């Protein structure tokens, strides 16, 4: 089967504009601008069943249709602040298949009537920003971006913007604050960005992978895309596989492929042939899946993963085998979220700090069962109280880890012992 998002794996030089155009590049955009109404583009995306690839899985076409058409101008922002531990798909897409991504941005802009789009990249992607700037210039030179495109009245410019290295700026409202030059802290929602976004104007924020799907959907039609994947989750997904597997990396598979297929067929199985103990399906923000035979055969789509008490999220599959102690895992995730909490809301600012204190105490030195209970209680106490999702994410692995792997907290697995 041909690749949809990771097309550079089929067509090696697709990062060159002429190669991309030879393979049908920018036909979808040109056709849309010349022959389709903006609503028509949105309708195709809606029909295709494309859902946001950033983690929340919100139907993309529906998001586009929410844009407030009474308030102008509109903006499109590509969320390239890929900071979730275990997620590395957007980087590969932008590095190797940049034009398909940029065409996706352009199509989104046309669909919602935006004349400017921003690509918000995490600070560490500074090289990538320069690379994308080059590509955007090429498009401008080729007349595929800029004023009065294809002899119509539609104009479009795309700009890149570098963040300063905060995980929270992947949250869409914090991203917008940061883009406006303010502190990267989430805003109160509602209102949501399609109503009040960048500079208080209606804004669509989409993940890089989501947008990269769009050109082929417009080109090949909604029905084609829908035929890939499962009824609940249409199309293909790039799974970032990492952890204790032989061949970690990005794998583009249709939704519905099972964990077993990903880990054993594509990822070459677990290191040292050890059994899979747990899976974190959405990077550090995941609820830990307690892995048994049934879990391994669960198809990876939004609905099925939910039956395992977790969420597919951004599909950053971190594989944990029996050499790894879950109390060590959650200590790492807590440390990450404590470091990345923006500090705006109380439960997250204080809760992550408090959890880290307890986790460190419980992990090094003081082994008090009451501490594990307290850790669980603090995490539960944070749930449902925070301003944005970061605070919730911080508690996922803690609560599920303690609930599903209680023995790891009583007798932590000795790493050294198992690895040799």
């Amino acid at each position: 089967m041909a690749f949809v998002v990771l097309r550079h794996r089929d067509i090696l030089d697709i990062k060159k504009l002429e190669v991309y155009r030879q393979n049908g590049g920018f036909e979808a955009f040109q056709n849309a601008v010349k022959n389709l109404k903006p609503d028509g583009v949105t309708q195709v995306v809606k029909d295709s069943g494309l859902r946001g690839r950033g983690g929340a899985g919100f139907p993309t076409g529906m998001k586009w249709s929410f844009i407030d058409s009474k308030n102008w101008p509109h903006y499109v922002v590509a969320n390239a602040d890929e900071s979730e531990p275990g997620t590395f798909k957007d980087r590969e897409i932008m590095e190797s298949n940049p034009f398909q991504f940029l065409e996706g941005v352009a199509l989104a802009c046309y669909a919602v009537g935006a004349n400017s789009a921003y690509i918000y990249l995490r600070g560490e992607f500074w090289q990538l920003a320069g690379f994308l700037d080059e590509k955007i210039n090429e498009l401008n030179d080729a007349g595929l971006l800029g004023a009065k495109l294809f002899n119509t009245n539609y104009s479009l410019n795309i700009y890149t913007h570098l963040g300063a290295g905060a995980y929270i700026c992947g949250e869409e409202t914090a991203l917008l604050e940061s883009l406006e030059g303010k502190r990267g802290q989430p805003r109160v929602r509602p209102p949501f960005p399609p109503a009040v976004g960048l500079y208080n104007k209606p804004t669509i924020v989409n993940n890089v992978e989501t947008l990269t799907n769009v050109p082929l959907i417009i080109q090949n039609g909604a029905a084609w895309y829908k035929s890939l994947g499962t009824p609940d989750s249409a199309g293909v997904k790039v799974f970032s596989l990492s952890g204790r597997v032989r061949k970690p990396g990005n794998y583009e598979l249709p939704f519905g492929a099972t964990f077993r297929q990903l880990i054993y067929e594509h990822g070459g199985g677990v290191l040292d042939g050890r059994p899979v103990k747990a899976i974190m399906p959405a990077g550090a923000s995941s609820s830990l899946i307690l892995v048994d035979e049934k879990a391994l055969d669960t198809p990876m789509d939004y609905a099925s993963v939910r039956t395992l008490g977790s969420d597919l999220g951004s599909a950053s599959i971190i594989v944990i085998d029996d050499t790894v102690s879950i109390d060590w895992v959650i200590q790492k995730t807590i440390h990450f979220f404590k470091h990345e909490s923006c500090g705006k809301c109380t439960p997250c600012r204080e809760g992550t700090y408090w959890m880290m204190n307890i986790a460190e105490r419980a992990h090094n030195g003081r082994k008090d069962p009451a501490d594990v209970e307290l850790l669980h209680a603090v995490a539960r106490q944070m749930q449902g109280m925070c301003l944005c999702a970061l605070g919730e994410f911080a508690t996922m692995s803690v609560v599920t880890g303690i609930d599903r792997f209680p023995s790891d907290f009583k007798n932590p697995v000795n790493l050294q012992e198992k690895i040799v």
Partner: protein
Amino acid sequence: MDKQVTLTIDGKLISVPEGTFVADAARMADIDIPVFCHHPKLEPVGMCRMCLVEIGRPIRDRATGQFVLENGQPKIQFLPKLETACTNRVEDGMVVHTQSESAKAGQKSTIEFLLTSHPLDCPVCDKGGECPLQNLTMAHGAGKSRFLYDEKLHLEKRKPLGELIYLDQERCIQCGRCVRFQDEIAGDPVIGFDERGRSMQIMTSSEPGFDSVFSGNTTDICPVGALTTADFRFGARPWELEEFPSICSQCPVGCNITINTRREAAADGSMVIKRIMPRQNETVNEIWICDKGRFAYHYTESKGRLTRPAIRKDGKLSRASWDSAIKLAAENFAEAGKNFVVLASGRLANEDLFNLKSLADHLKGDAVLYSEIGGGELTSAIGISPDTNLGEVGPGTTLVVIASDLYQEAPIWYLRLKQAVRRGATLIVANPRQTRLDDHASYVIRYAYGDEVKTVHSLDKKNKIGEAFTRSENVIIFYGSEGLGVEGSAALASACAKLLNEYGFAGKPNNGLVGVWQRANDQGAWEMGYRVEADLPRFLRGKVVYLVGVDPAGDDPRLAKALENAKFLAVQDILESATSELADVILPAQAHTEREGTFTSGERRVQRYYPALPVLGETRPDFAITAQIARQAGFIQEGTSVSAAFDILSETIPSYAELSYSKLAEVQPQWPVVGRGDLYYGGTTYENKHGLGAHLTTTASRGENVHILRVHRESAPRPQENELLAVPVTRLYDRGTTVLPAKVLKNRIGKATISMHPDIAERLNVKNGGLVKISFDGHSGEALVQIDKTIPAGVVTVPRSMGLAIHEPVPAKVK
């Protein structure tokens, strides 16, 4: 009136205006939803998560838009998680539970989280006793924390943000109220958050630190003891303080304040002022005061207070009895007849000014207000009318500020005008140089010093500004004395008044002329019929002068000379001064903190102040001293009861008609609710229980005929070659006798600084901060130079009351 929305909070059915937040709606209905980051004057942010409640909304049928019914009642849908009451607006049919198990658990959790990093050093905290965190912990917190005390964060406990405000990083709960106040209300975004997560801290980005004249207000709205003022730091525990309502005497805004007093060992066990706090009056100062009003109160406790009457004998001042002092003054006044002059200050109460004026009238003398701004009689004719509220003006109202830097001259007016623009009012700022209000103005007009009247004449021209002016429903003009003397400001006032009258912007609410006076009660003096004198030195020569609350000799050597040549000087004041040295008789008066009285604010609101401190020595209130002199001169005045004196005043002066002390003491419920029981909500601002005051009527609002004389004025003097035009400007922190004793303000007062354009500085070969000698009008002094490219070339601005005796534009030499 706004559309009303009906909702149920804790089973109580209430109606509130559309767009209200649930937290505010609950407060209106007297239901407590605890908050930290939310403040009714600030935009909501939903940061602290203290106001978590259960909010249910009626389900609407998608097709019909009607409520879905269940058992005849709308079906209510609750979200699975708690929501913040401060960010959700009310909706029809909404149901809110603030006391349910889960809501209470949420509030308890937030308190527990907040206290994990809080040092719990309430015994040494200045906020202890009036601390929202303390109160809400008692009301909503768990009795015990599960957090290990040893693991508490230790941070800096004494971090000066500036020399006025200190930050305790441990106590800060990162609610951002201070940051948002500075940004949204004050328009001085000089503090902000640094770092993120648990390391997030308040920092200042200005030099000098926390460079804002509203900085003290952040300590009022801070819900913990993180921000404290240098002045009150460890001064007293809040519960030990006594509170006395008063009116700020520093500028014409007339901010309502509360004076907190306490015994002090250093003052030998007598009562002293420990701090000045704002007192709510939504029509005057809302819940804010400026730093000058907050910190510059020490003058009443200064060592140089006059406490005993004195008479000059054999060229020396010696102690005398009240009777003999009054007798001597009365004899000399009565003899003088036409040569008798009352030179009174706008620091006096209405009753004092009234008695002084009637004494002058009775003796056929003259009553002169000691001020450098003319044209005040016009504010009495077409000034602001009753029912004006700057806090409510919005679309349809045009506010004009001409020849005044409100940020420096009347900070609270600056703040109120800025808020009015936010609500949709149009603001036109006309000034020769850039002022802070320019940032918020809809239109900025720059004119050359001397072109003030011409600028006013062009306000109704056919252009954008003219349209904004003429098409407005309401227009208020604030005129000041930037670069003007008595004659210049009188001409400006007359031009403004004529324009307002021509377009009918007079005699109705939210219309009229406002003078940005130099002192708190200048407006009162204008209402009584005082006049100003442009050439005081010549005028005073050979006269019998009754100087009340003024220090001309200290302000200007030319005036000192004129007073030396006067026939007889009676000085009635609170402080020793250069003028009191020259006196033939000294009559020690009580400071306004020691007595009762009323001030008339620049917005023509009469407000009462009450005694806060015990009477000092043998001092007497001004109106009583004047009445005793009058009695000696055979003229009966009210000299015992200040309220009776006010009654006579209100019978005599038409604009004060029908007012009385009891009317001035009336209060009405105000929004937002503040007060000791609601500290967490509005801050430590005091509730107004002692009167909101009352507006004066104007000639125009009474429907009488208004005559406005056209005042001609000599054009500004032309400086010769190698001269500059020195123009007077007003600074907030000056070297006036009421400001200088405030030691905390020492750095803000600084040295006399003149400003000039960089080209001029280059020509004179001076650098920024360099010392120069400036001489004008036979007077010279040293000053620091500030290079400012917004100052027109050929001009040097000279601050008033900073040691350089400037009264009007004069050619000056700078070396």
